[in-house]
């Protein structure tokens, strides 16, 4: 009876389809995760150095995406040939990175720096204020409606299989994110600046005592975090294809969740956290329903904070008195 003829092949086929579907979702999740990780690095670096949850980081990236959109129009990239398109994208990443990095440093200088010795609430609330101001600038820049970001890359599949899709857009994410992350870890591990950053994040006073210019290190941290965010904003536009002035809040929240999940202040942690959050998002969108994704991600955040507040790769630290 069990060997009845018809159902078996169908079952087999649907099983293989569902397995492929699963892998496809994982691939989407990892690609998304790389993007989230890039944003998460901006949170984790600033937090690691001055202990501030930079609420404005998501909105900084929104502004980067606005600039990218304007530049695409100004450079006429939607009509360019393949070679020019790739050159243009490289230029976009560079310009938006510089823009976001510089803006981040300027905000630090104007807003957070005078509050270094104030109670922790003050810079946090100021960051919320800055995020409002950024959102308003974005509103003036691109208007209140969502704007579609032009498709610059061909959508041909790069994998031989029909059922598993990995196209140029996905490749773009990988070839921008991976070198940036390698460069960052090299910078933090092997350069004088990186050493100074690690020293400042351990103990500002002691770092200043051994002759490190703490303010310069903090400014560099803001710049690097902002630069990575600017690069992320270009990829976001090219990959997601829709930007709006309110996108910063939710994306920032996902990225922050990733940073906390990996262990805030830890750079490999942010990357790992980004990948995990990307996977969770993709799988919950596919299997539970997209409308629940936000709730699931934040529920995970709460559970992690309760049971393992130091994150996956972070070290347990006591709050300093």
């Amino acid at each position, binding site marked *: 009876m069990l060997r009845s003829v018809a159902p078996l092949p169908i079952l087999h086929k649907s099983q293989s389809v569902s397995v492929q579907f699963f892998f496809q979702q994982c691939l989407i999740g990892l690609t998304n995760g790389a993007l989230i990780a890039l944003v998460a690095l901006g949170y984790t670096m600033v937090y690691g150095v001055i*202990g501030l*949850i930079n609420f404005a980081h998501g909105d900084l990236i929104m502004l980067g995406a606005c600039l990218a959109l304007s530049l695409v129009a100004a450079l006429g990239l939607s009509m360019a040939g393949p070679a020019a398109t790739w050159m243009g994208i490289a230029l976009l990443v560079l310009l938006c990175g510089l823009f976001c990095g510089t803006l981040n440093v300027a905000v630090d200088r104007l*807003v957070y720096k*005078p*509050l270094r*010795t*104030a*109670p*922790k*609430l*003050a*810079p*946090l*609330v*100021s960051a*919320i*204020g*800055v*995020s*409002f*101001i*950024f*959102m*308003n*600038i974005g*509103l*003036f820049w691109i*208007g*209140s409606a969502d704007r579609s970001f032009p498709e610059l890359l061909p959508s041909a599949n790069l994998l031989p299989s029909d059922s598993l899709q990995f196209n140029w857009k996905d490749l773009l994410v990988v070839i921008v994110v991976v070198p940036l992350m390698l460069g960052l870890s090299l910078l933090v591990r092997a350069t004088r600046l990186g050493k100074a950053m690690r020293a400042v994040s351990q103990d500002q006073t002691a770092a200043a005592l051994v002759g490190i210019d703490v303010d310069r290190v903090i400014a560099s941290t803001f710049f690097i975090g902002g630069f990575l965010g600017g690069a992320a904003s270009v990829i976001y536009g090219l990959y997601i294809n829709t930007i709006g002035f309110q996108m910063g*809040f939710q994306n920032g*929240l996902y990225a*922050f*969740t990733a940073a*906390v999940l990996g262990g805030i202040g830890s750079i490999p942690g942010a990357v790992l956290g980004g990948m995990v959050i990307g996977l969770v998002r993709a799988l919950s969108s596919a299997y539970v329903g997209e*409308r*629940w994704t*936000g*709730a699931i991600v*934040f*529920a995970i*955040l*709460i559970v992690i*904070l*309760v049971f393992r*507040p130091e994150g996956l790769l972070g070290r347990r630290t006591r*709050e300093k*008195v």
Partner: protein
Amino acid sequence: MKNQDPQHSTDFFSRRDRAYEFVRERWDMMALAVLAVAPLCVPALGGALGGQVTTLFIYCILALGLNVVVGYTGLVHLGIAAFFGIGAYIMAILTVPMYPFQIGFLAATIVSVLITAGVGLALGAPTLRLRGDYLAIVTLGFGEVVKVTLRNLEQITGGMKGLNPVPPPGAGVKVAGIDLGLAFAIDPRWFYYLALVSLAGVVLAMRRLEDSRLGRAWVAVREDELAASAMGISATRVKLSAFAMSSAVAGLAGCLYAASLSTTADPNAYDFNRSIMVLCAVILGGLGSIPGTLLGVTILVGFDTVLAPWADSLIQQMNINPSGLILLSFSGWRLAIFGLALVLVMRFRPEGLVPSRRLAAELHEAHP
């Protein structure tokens, strides 16, 4: 000749001081008297304006609830709107005809306040041990979870339509031959008085709490958790009580909100923006200060309901903005104005417009 001019001037100053002290001590009674008489003198309060002022009172209650956590206890709470929403939805579930409960306004309020306090405890118990900024994120995440849940559990919460109609308080109760519910439904002034009495009750309770053993423990934990623990205060328990108290007050505000609108409105009414606006109001007015909180809410609500529409219509009349550019409309600058206000207040007057004396001293001591 002794004590000529100096005497004179001290007299003048002490008289002004006494007037200031009088206002400082008696502002609540004066405001209450004015607000209690107002509906009898201002006919507009019987119309749409009455509803707006009622909503203002409800936000004041909500902000006073948030002030317990943020102001007295010094924790960052970014999800107060979630508790506001839970209060509103429980009120609706217990009273709308769609559900079999229909237990009446007063009972529903009590149940709802108890449940929101319980939810506050349940969220706070595991998370209040966390570092301050992590707590901010937990409350923020909780707010998002609640909003998404309210939106998606359509069978229970009505999805984007919300739950309605929430019957007015006292429906079916007859006093001197008049159906109270009908009175509430017809004349907004009934809700005005209900909200005013609730607000007065909350203000009174807060002032008593400020001077109570618990209130002093809250402030002690804010000022120095380590020192407070050394004095035998259980910091976690004190924070938890603040969290529960704030949730309960927010729940009460939610009940009044749902009843006065006769609907829960859609879940977006309880999102992050609402939380952050209430937080802005508390910070702007003065953390830990009751008059400050009330003033902050009045300024922010006044901005949205009075100043912005007035300025927009002025711009329209002057024909500055014929093509409807958002850049040239006053309300287009709303976020930037609020954001700038937050940044400037934190930079130059972190104790807010009407500071609580103790917090002001604390904040200025922290600047070396």
